[in-house]
């Protein structure tokens, strides 16, 4: 919210510096996001008296001698048509900063620094300025709109800074107002806080006016009291539409509002000053001389002041005359009852529309205004009543109309008197953890106009009707501490709290263990969004009926690429690997531990399954299926479990280099090389491998108890055996058979594979190292031989495996 300090000063005597004012506001909950002077970009521009002004022959230029008081006398060339001797203009001295304008002298193109120059052979030390060059418009300073030099008042002293003369020294604060303080979204509302924090009296706005006794035919009714709790209207006649006075135009301009004409300007002025949106209807365009507040009919149409047409619904509130909508309540007036230059009778409106309704209508229609922004935060009836009076006062002050006696106040009976609230002083202090002296409590609450009285532990206050946010002792505690000062809080370390245990639980600890195991494998932890793109499902070449396509949709995504809750972590991992390759990193390992989202039904009616999932991606010429498998086994090893692998095809993986991952027979994931088509599509230069493990399925193995196995009393026996078999016999089937056949074997390690002519066609050999662990007695070599014979017999029987000669 833009706040010109001079406007604030109408209501509080501010005798502190802008810095101190900023700090005071900050300390009581109002952050000044930016503070600046209107002429923040202007420097070293002084009053210059043109003493001599001679035309330069054959040009439109003049060469002038300008008296700049204490700065001296300068020769300055000037091209403006209104330069003449004896007059005073802003003189930008050499080194001054002013706005640079385009050839049209109107469009500002930036800030420039003035240097000494030469025009048509004449030296020029400085520049006489237009209003535009100083950042002034006609509304900010009379005469500044002229496309030529800005003429300064005759009583200006040469050499004096032009800023105070032209109002360029005015300070503007841009204050951020929190959502709980809609009463502060106005100059007067903020002035109340400033008065309280500076401990100065608050001056009240002038609300005086006199009704003429004249009446006029008008009826006002409200059919939707649930959406409009108060509707005040007043008929004003003998209206004389013209420009507003300079002071009003200037203030409106300073707060970012364009000045239009006195009646419209008054409504905007009251909005900015008091925080109550107002509207003015041309009486002569109100058919039936009636106003009715009601819900719109479905598909009812209105064209607003900005000439946009809207088709309405039952959820939109409209102001109607005897026949048709004439305004979109709280958002914008209708074009059909707009104030025109010819308007001579108006009906003013000040109303309290319901916050939620205005916000929703504004959103659903995509139409907003300063009014709807204020209504969306909240308006109090206290202010509604005040605003109408203020507007009528301004009518009189500006002399632009007469206040009739035809007026309506349609309301639901809400009081605008202060509410009494009683709280316990010790509870207020209990929230804060300190004992604020009673006198200070009384002082700060009095400054906030709460009329506090303390009797023993009982604090009674009268809460003004514009402070609906004050309901409990906690609210009072906040009022006290923000005015008393948060620096009074004494930090304590929960002395009254009971001792509790804490830290990560088993699941959290185990997940961290898994992550650390993956890091030890050289993998970096990544983190991707929980939502992804429908195109990611296409990237995986998933068929239409794939369950992975059954994703939860965001109703209001930022864009299509972030519109589905992910059902797999794989696509984002592929993108991550591709992106790294684009960055020139051609080898790497990444993992992510995150949720995928599996809906039970769509649209969502109950919480979906959020499944913790690990996704691992490795890429590079130095990686292969088995290096990825190694990374996976690090996960298994962290959990002290074993993974098994079975060949399986997946639409996005290499058909011969992909497997499903099992644990105790349960399918828990997949792994393999990313299909070349996908590698190409994502511009990956080196092969990529990806694995996805359903961590939630593994939680049952978390916290497996570790027991120490005593070291064997006798030496282990290790034997190397080389088997010859058919090519299609898998390593896993050999290992499984050995394990099943002999329980002395505690470890099996493949160390060589060979295929060659001497083995015969479709044959291969695999060499294993077998570890035989003794049980209760020493393993004799002959006994191990017998175990091996048994193993060989079984392998031979099952797969025709023989020992290589």
């Amino acid at each position: 919210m833009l706040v010109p300090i001079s406007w604030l000063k109408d209501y509080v005597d501010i005798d502190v510096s802008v810095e101190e004012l900023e700090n005071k506001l900050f300390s009581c909950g109002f952050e000044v996001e930016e503070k600046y002077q209107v002429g923040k970009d202007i420097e070293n521009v002084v009053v210059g008296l043109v003493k001599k002004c001679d035309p330069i022959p054959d040009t439109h230029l003049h060469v002038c001698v300008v008296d700049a008081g204490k700065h001296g006398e300068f020769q300055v060339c000037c091209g403006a048509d209104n330069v003449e001797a004896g007059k005073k203009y802003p003189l930008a001295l050499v080194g001054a900063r002013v706005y640079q304008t385009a050839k049209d002298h109107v469009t500002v193109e930036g800030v420039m620094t003035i240097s000494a120059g030469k025009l048509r052979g004449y030296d020029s030390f400085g520049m006489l300025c237009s209003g535009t060059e100083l950042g002034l418009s006609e509304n900010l300073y009379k005469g500044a709109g002229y496309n030529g030099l800005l003429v300064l008042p005759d009583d200006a002293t040469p050499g004096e800074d032009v800023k105070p003369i032209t109002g360029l020294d005015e300070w503007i604060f841009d204050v951020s107002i929190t959502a709980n303080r809609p009463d502060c979204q106005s100059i007067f509302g903020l002035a109340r806080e400033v008065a309280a924090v500076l401990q100065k009296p608050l001056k009240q706005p002038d609300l005086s006016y006199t009704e003429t006794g004249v009446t006029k035919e008008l009826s006002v009714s409200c059919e939707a009291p649930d959406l409009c709790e108060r509707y005040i209207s007043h008929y004003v006649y003998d209206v004389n539409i013209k420009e507003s006075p300079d002071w009003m135009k200037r203030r409106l301009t300073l707060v970012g509002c364009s000045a239009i004409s006195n009646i419209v300007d008054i409504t905007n002025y009251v909005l900015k000053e008091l925080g109550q949106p107002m509207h003015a209807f041309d009486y002569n365009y109100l058919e039936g001389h009636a106003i009715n507040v009601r819900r719109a009919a479905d598909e009812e149409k209105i064209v607003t002041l900005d000439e946009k047409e809207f088709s309405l619904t039952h959820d939109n509130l409209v102001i109607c005359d005897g026949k048709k909508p004439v305004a979109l309540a709280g958002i914008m007036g209708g074009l059909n009852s707009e104030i025109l230059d010819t308007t001579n009778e108006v009906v003013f409106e000040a109303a309290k529309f319901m916050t939620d309704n205005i916000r929703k209508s504004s959103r659903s229609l995509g139409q907003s205004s300063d009014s709807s922004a204020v209504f969306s935060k909240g308006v109090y009836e206290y202010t509604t009543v005040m605003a109408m009076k203020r507007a009528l006062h301004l009518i009189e002050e500006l002399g632009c109309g007469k206040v009739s006696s035809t007026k309506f106040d349609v309301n639901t009976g809400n009081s605008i008197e202060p509410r009494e609230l009683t709280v316990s002083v010790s509870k207020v202090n209990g929230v804060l953890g300190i004992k604020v002296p009673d006198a200070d409590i009384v002082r700060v609450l009095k400054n906030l106009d709460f009329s506090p009285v303390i009797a023993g532990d009982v604090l009674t206050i009268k809460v003004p009707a514009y402070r609906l946010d004050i309901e409990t002792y906690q609210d009072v505690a906040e009022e006290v501490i923000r005015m008393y000062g948060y620096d009074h809080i004494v930090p304590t370390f929960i002395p009254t709290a009971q001792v509790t245990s804490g830290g990560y639980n088993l699941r959290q600890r185990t997940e961290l263990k898994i992550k650390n195991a993956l890091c030890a494998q050289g993998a970096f932890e990544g983190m991707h969004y929980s939502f992804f793109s429908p195109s990611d499902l296409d990237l995986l070449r998933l068929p239409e009926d794939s369950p992975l396509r059954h994703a939860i949709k965001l109703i209001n995504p930022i864009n299509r690429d972030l519109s589905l809750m992910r059902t797999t972590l794989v696509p984002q991992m592929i993108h991550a690997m591709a992106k790294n390759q684009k960055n020139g990193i051609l080898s790497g390992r990444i993992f992510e531990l995150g949720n995928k989202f599996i809906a039970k039904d769509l649209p969502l009616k109950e919480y979906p399954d959020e499944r913790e999932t690990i996704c691992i991606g490795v890429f590079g010429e130095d990686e292969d299926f088995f290096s990825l498998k190694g990374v996976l086994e690090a996960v298994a090893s962290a959990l002290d479990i074993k993974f098994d692998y079975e060949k399986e095809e997946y639409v996005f993986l290499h058909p011969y280099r992909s497997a499903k991952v099992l644990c105790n027979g349960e399918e828990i994931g997949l792994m393999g090389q990313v299909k070349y088509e996908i590698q190409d599509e994502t511009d990956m230069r080196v092969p990529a491998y990806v694995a996805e493990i359903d961590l939630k399925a593994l939680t049952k193995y978390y916290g497996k108890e570790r027991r120490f196995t005593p070291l064997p009393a006798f030496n282990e026996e290790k034997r190397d055996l080389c088997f010859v078999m058919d090519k299609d016999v898998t390593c896993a089937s050999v290992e499984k058979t050995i394990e099943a056949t002999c329980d002395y074997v505690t470890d099996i390690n493949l160390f060589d594979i060979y295929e060659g002519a001497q083995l015969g066609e479709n044959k291969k050999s695999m060499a294993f190292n077998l570890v035989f662990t003794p049980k209760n007695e020493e393993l004799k070599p002959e006994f191990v031989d017998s175990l091996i014979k048994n193993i060989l017999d079984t392998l031979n029987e099952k797969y025709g495996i023989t020992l290589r000669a």
Partner: protein
Amino acid sequence: MADLNELTEKLSLLKQEIEAKIDTFSDSKEAFEFRKGLMDSKTGQIGSLMKEMGKIPNELKADYGKKVNEIKAWALSKFDELEKTLKEKEMKKRYEAEAIDVTLPSKMRPVGYLHPITQVKNQIVQIFGSMGFDIFEGTEIENDYYNFTALNIPKDHPARDMQDTFYLSPDFLLRTQTSAGQIHVMEAKKPPIKIISPGKVFRSDDDATHSPMFTQMEGLVVDKGITLGDLQGLLNVFVEKIFGDGTTTRLRPSYFPFTEPSVEVDVSCFQCKGKGCKLCKGTGWIEVLGAGVVNKKVLEGCDIDSDVYSGIAFGIGVDRIAMLKYGINNIKLLFESDLRVLDQIND
């Protein structure tokens, strides 16, 4: 060989011969072999001398033996010295031959690192875990009640506008704050409650400084006599541990519907120690979290007697802390798995 003089002469000749020979060796193995030959008890020029003893008259035996032993000792020490010198030379050569450029790259298989957010999360958990805080992780998908209504943000509340919410259905949404976890905990557990609740949160905001997904950590203490002073005390400990000794906090008023009073918590700038620098924009303070005394309406909504118990809550922006701590300048970098970024942070 009856004459000792003859022997002496023979031995001195042998000595000369050995001395001359010694200078010719360049290899310790050769020297060793030669010495072995020399000392051989059957064939060696020195080793075999003792064989002659039998031929020596008895009265001369002692002198003979003495002389032989002398030369033997002399030769042995001479060869020891020689071999030592030669071995030293050979070692030197070997070392020289094995010279390397020590600045060549190492052969370490680099380990990976945890995500910067995980690292910060772990640090925060360690701090609060040691103070007895449990870690509660809620769900990313929440319903309207837990995310808003139960947190004193009813349907028409303007505070809903403060957070642009992603909706999945009329009732379900992506949580906009980890505060939603507060309610689940307070419904499930009665005081004393001390939890922190880290997790991903989502807001419909996507620009240079905002990411639609980021990480928050909610903290909640509910017990008897908990005050705003406790909040500051607790957070002072936290910021000192996470940002370093001497870091302190400043409270200033703010607004959150679920706390009253609500405060923004600034930490003293850990880079300039409060003097004012680029990081703190010259103010000496950095805004890091929002907090407050739990609104009694929220407690009561969870059937906790607000006359007996009170609570404090705080919401930490984990990403923001990670970015501040490590000087990461763009939040988007945290979600791109760019290895050039990830391999820089190992705290």
